[in-house]
Every structure is written in structure tokens, then in C-alpha cells.
């Protein structure tokens, strides 16, 4: 079935009226979550089942609503960076970069080239760590098909620990780094770090081949191929971004299409696109991204330019920078898609705190496909689809 033919096929109705459903059917209502090991956090889906097949799925997010946007309104620009670390806790570097880029754009602060280079490097290494975590948990969600289910999880976490050790050497923290600031970086690259990066990423690059060999398994293909198909039309309507959109056949990557940092200097950035839109396509896209990020990181780590890591003084005391009234939007490509930061600065007396900070999380839009994609699948497939969407509830509920 081609992508076009699938797009023309009738979609399941997400607003199906259960009362007027076939009264002879074997109906059952089931809760998936909020405490469920496969929901990657606290996410609840109400499933209406006909026998074993889902006929309607109603998602209920909000079990981790921490009021981050409201909290940011009373903090100064320098204080916000450690708060947004906790939004997407699998890729905190990218969160810090998103808000700090918005603040720099608003305050008109120049970032030195060394800091820009470091940001690109850190973002790519973080992307490797995030995709590794996804690969491990996705393989675990698929369950016993993969040699006990937890083998790939154990291997992926072993590699992820190596990357976290790299970050620990740089910033002192395993995650929640607080290493970005308005105008640059706080921590410089320590001596011998580049060799460490080469050693770790080289080892991971070899091991990804092993994982791919392990996962090209007939049972894995059976669980993922043709499961949870998101066509390109639906993906664009619901605002999907990142690997989910690319797996649906839309060639869109902010790193290439709207370059920031120093991505415009990387000419041969390979963007993986698959046309099937199923779980297998999402897996393939992410594995290609994993290799590409490793390649870019190893390229970048050798060419870090000399110079200061922070433009002028790092912003420390409140009132050092005063923003005029205005608004900016900054979008960057995280492992899950476009992370947007929309900042409205109050100006005047409210110059050193944001008036409103809106975060556009990619995972929230990813979860919007649940009512459209779940119907027609069995419950075990629902778990596989949810795993392939890679939602992080910290940024969905914020």
C-alpha cells in the first residue's frame, strides 16, 4: 500500500459515539496509565475495546503539570535556564539552548563563535544520548520478542552512561547541566575531552551495527511494520515535527531549512526521510539520525575555534540586562522535533523578567495522533505506537 493510497483510505473517527456502537459487540473500557511502565511517564489513555481491538482512544495528559511557564514569569533571565532543564529531561541541553537563544535575540547579545560551535557539538552529542534512550525503551516496550526484552535496553543504557560521563566531565552534572547562559557557555572544554569524545562515539558507532543486526528480526519487523501508520497529510495537520514528520515522508529539518548555531556551515547534513509512516519507518529515521549525529559530532569536536566562550560578562545579577518590550520566536530541532520558545518581554519595570514565556513542546503534538492512530490496533500495538512516538511527559504537561 503506497503512501498516497493510504492517505486516501478512510481514517478512523476519533470522536466515535460509543452509545450508538453495535450493541451486540463485546465492549470493554480500559485505562492505559497513568502509572504504566510503557507510557514513558504519567500519561493516561482511555481505551474502548471491541474484543481485543481498540475502537476509540481518548488521551488525558496533565499528570505532570508543574506550571513551568508561570514559574518563569517571576524569574530573571539567568534564573530560567535550570528550570527549563526539567522540561525535556532526556535532552536538557536543547531546552537550555532554546530559551537562551530567545533571550539573546531579545536582549541583542552576541554569542562568540567558540560558544556557537560548542552548542552545536553539545546538541548533537545530546541527540545521540536521547535516541539511545529511545531505542532502549522502545525495544523494551516491544517486549519478549527481543531476547527477554531488556537486552537492548541494557546495551543502550551502557552507551548512554558513557555519554553522560562526557557531560559530567564538562559541566559537573549527569543531567540538568545549567551550562548555557545568555551570551555563551559557562564551562569550557577541559583538556583531553576531544579524545574522550572520539573514543566514546567511535565505540557507539560500532555498536549501533550490532543493535541493528539484533533488531532486524522477523518478530521485530512483524511488530513494527505497518503498525501505527501516520500519513503525511495527518502529520502536517496535527503539527508533527522531527523524526515523526520525516518518517511520514515530509522532508523537513530545521537544522537544514532554518539553520541556527553553525549548522549552515555543515554542507552535507544528511536528513533521513522514510515514506511509510509506520513504527518501522520511525525506527529507521532515528537510527540514521543516530549515525549522522555521531558523524557530525566527531567532525565538530576537532575544529573548535579558539576564543572566549561567553560574550562579555556572563549574566549573573538581576538587572544586568534590560529587555525592551517586544516578542521573539525561536525554534530549534530537538530529538523529538521543533522546540519553540515564544517570549514576550514586558519592558520598563519588567525588563529583567519575561512577561510571558510560551514553550511549544514537540511531544504534545506527537501525542495528538493518539486518537487518530490507535483505533484498529490491539492493545499491545498501542504500546508499541506510544513507544515509537517518544513522548516526554515533562515537556507535554510542563
Amino acid at each position, binding site marked *: 500500500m503506497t503512501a498516497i493510497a493510504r492517505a486516501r483510505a478512510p481514517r478512523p473517527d476519533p470522536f466515535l459515539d460509543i452509545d450508538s456502537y453495535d450493541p451486540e459487540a463485546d465492549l470493554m473500557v480500559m485505562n492505559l496509565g*497513568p*502509572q*504504566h*511502565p510503557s507510557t514513558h*511517564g*504519567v500519561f493516561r489513555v482511555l481505551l474502548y475495546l471491541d474484543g481485543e481491538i481498540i475502537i476509540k482512544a481518548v488521551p488525558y495528559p*496533565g*499528570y*505532570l*503539570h*508543574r*506550571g513551568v511557564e*508561570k*514559574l518563569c514569569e517571576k524569574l530573571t533571565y539567568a534564573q530560567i535556564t535550570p*528550570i527549563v532543564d*526539567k522540561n525535556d*529531561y*532526556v535532552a536538557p541541553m536543547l531546552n537550555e539552548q532554546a530559551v537562551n537563544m530567545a533571550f539573546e535575540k531579545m536582549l541583542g547579545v552576541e554569542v562568540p563563535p567558540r560558544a556557537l560551535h560548542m552548542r552545536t557539538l553539545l546538541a548533537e552529542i545530546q541527540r545521540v544520548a536521547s535516541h539511545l*534512550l529511545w531505542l532502549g*525503551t522502545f525495544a523494551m516496550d516491544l517486549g519478549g520478542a527481543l531476547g527477554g526484552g531488556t537486552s537492548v*535496553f*541494557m*546495551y543502550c*543504557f*551502557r552507551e*548512554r*552512561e558513557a555519554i553522560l560521563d562526557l557531560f559530567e566531565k564538562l559541566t559537573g552534572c*549527569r*543531567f*540538568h547541566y545549567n551550562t548555557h547562559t545568555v551570551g555563551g557557555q559557562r564551562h569550557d572544554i577541559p583538556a583531553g575531552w576531544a579524545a574522550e569524545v572520539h573514543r566514546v562515539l567511535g565505540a557507539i558507532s560500532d555498536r549501533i551495527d550490532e543493535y541493528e543486526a539484533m533488531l532486524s528480526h522477523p518478530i521485530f519487523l512483524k511488530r513494527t511494520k505497518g503498525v501505527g501508520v501516520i500519513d503525511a497529510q495527518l502529520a502536517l495537520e496535527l503539527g508533527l515535527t522531527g523524526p515523526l514528520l520525516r518518517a511520514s515522508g515530509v522532508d523537513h529539518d530545521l537544522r537544514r531549512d532554518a539553520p541556527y548555531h553553525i549548522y549552515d556551515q555543515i554542507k552535507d547534513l544528511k536528513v533521513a526521510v522514510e515514506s511509510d509512516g509506520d513504527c518501522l519507518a520511525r525506527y529507521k529515521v532515528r537510527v540514521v539520525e543516530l549515525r549522522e549525529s555521531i558523524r557530525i559530532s566527531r567532525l565538530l569536536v576537532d575544529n573548535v575555534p579558539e576564543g572566549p566562550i561567553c560574550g562579555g560578562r556572563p549574566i549573573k545579577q538581576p538587572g544586568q540586562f534590560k529587555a525592551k518590550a517586544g516578542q521573539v520566536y525561536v525554534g530549534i530541532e530537538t530529538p523529538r522535533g521543533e522546540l519553540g520558545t515564544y517570549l514576550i518581554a514586558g519592558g520598563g519595570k519588567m525588563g529583567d523578567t519575561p512577561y510571558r514565556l510560551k514553550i511549544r513542546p514537540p511531544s504534545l503534538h506527537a501525542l495528538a495522533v493518539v486518537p487518530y492512530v490507535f483505533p484498529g490496533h490491539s492493545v499491545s500495538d498501542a504500546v508499541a505506537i506510544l513507544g515509537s512516538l517518544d513522548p516526554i*511527559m*515533562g515537556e507535554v504537561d510542563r
Partner: protein
Amino acid sequence: MAVNESERSFQHPLYEVLERFPGLDLATTQVDKLLTWGANNSQWIFPMATSCCGIEFMAAAASLVDLDRMGSITRGTPRQSDVMVVAGTITVKMAPRVKRLWDQMPEPKWCIAMGSCAISGDFYRDIYSVIPGIDVAIPVDVYIPGCPPNPEQLMAGMLRLQEKVNLKRAGLWSPPETRPETPKTIEPAIKRLLHQGRDRRIDAAQIDQALSLELPVVDLPPLPEPAPEKGEDE
């Protein structure tokens, strides 16, 4: 809010049966040792992993730190678990679910609060949707501070729990857990009554203000006569 240790008991009908037969009561101590050994080396974990600490919990269960070597296997259902690890921020919407899952766990059971959010709410504690620490809902045995704690710290917390269980089952006193962030979170700006650092001038001002109100005097009923004290010889 620490656990009320006096209400924890490990009574079992088996003990009563054993005590009926002379000589067999000696065996109960051996049975107790056996049960303690078993309880300590099979603390199955129910992960209440909501946010960032959940990732560190997964890292602790993975190959590098490996909680499995202590016999602490992760279970997906509360009915098979002994220890609940609350890892992450607990919101107002989630707290009743945590309580319900805690109630479903069979006795004896323990709870570990992992990370600042589970201990005190951290910097979200002033937010309308976050509860200030999981110990307002369920009793906590071990606190593991950190944001998030390393997997090694979680391991240290599990060892601390084993130590506590050993002491408790041997009938020995174990020092109660202090909540690490208590002074930071519940110390009020104006010191409450009986606090040593309370400013006496506030008291004096309050008393003066109360006296200056000139409230109408009410005649109180007379107090009853105290009963005569009984002598020791009677």
C-alpha cells in the same frame, strides 16, 4: 513527617502457633532471622517514576549500577512489590493515584522518596499544581536528596533501607529519618510560638493590642472543687 515506627508490626499467626508448644518458641527467633534475611534480599521495587528521577532510576536498574544484584527487581504492579520508589514531581492530579497504588501494596512495605521534588516539591513547591513532598500523602522511610540523585545515591538509599529493616526486626532502635529539606521549606518568616528565635517584641505588641481592645468582661462560671486526694494507706 516521619514514619510512626511504633505502629509497624511484623506479627504473623505462625508465631502464635509456635508459642503454644514449649521449646518451639526458640525457633521463632530463627524464623525471624530467616524472614529478615529474605525481606532484605528481595526488596522488589515498584517505581512511581514520574519525571527526571525516573530516568536515573532506569539508569540504576540498568547494567552499570545494577540494582538487581541486591535482589531488587522492578515490578510493574504494586501487588508484587515491597518498596515504592517515588521518583519525580507529584502533582495534585497524580497524588491520589500514588496513594491508591500505595494502599494496594501488601504489608510489610516501605517507601523511598527520591529527589528534591518527591521530598519537598523543590522549586515547584509554590506552584498551584504541585504537592510539597510525597510525605504529605504517604509515609516515607528513606529520603534521597539530589536533583536528580545519581544511581549510586539510590543504591546508598536502598542499603540504608536494608539497615533500617534489620534494626527494626531485631527490635533495636534506629534513628528516625530527618527530612533533608525541612528547614528550608517549612521555616516561616515570622517565627511561631515557642520557637527560640521568636521576637519577644511581637508578643508584647500583640498582648498590648489585645489589652487595648477593651472587650466586655464576661463572668465565668466557678470551677468545680477538686476531689480530695486519697492517702497511700487506704
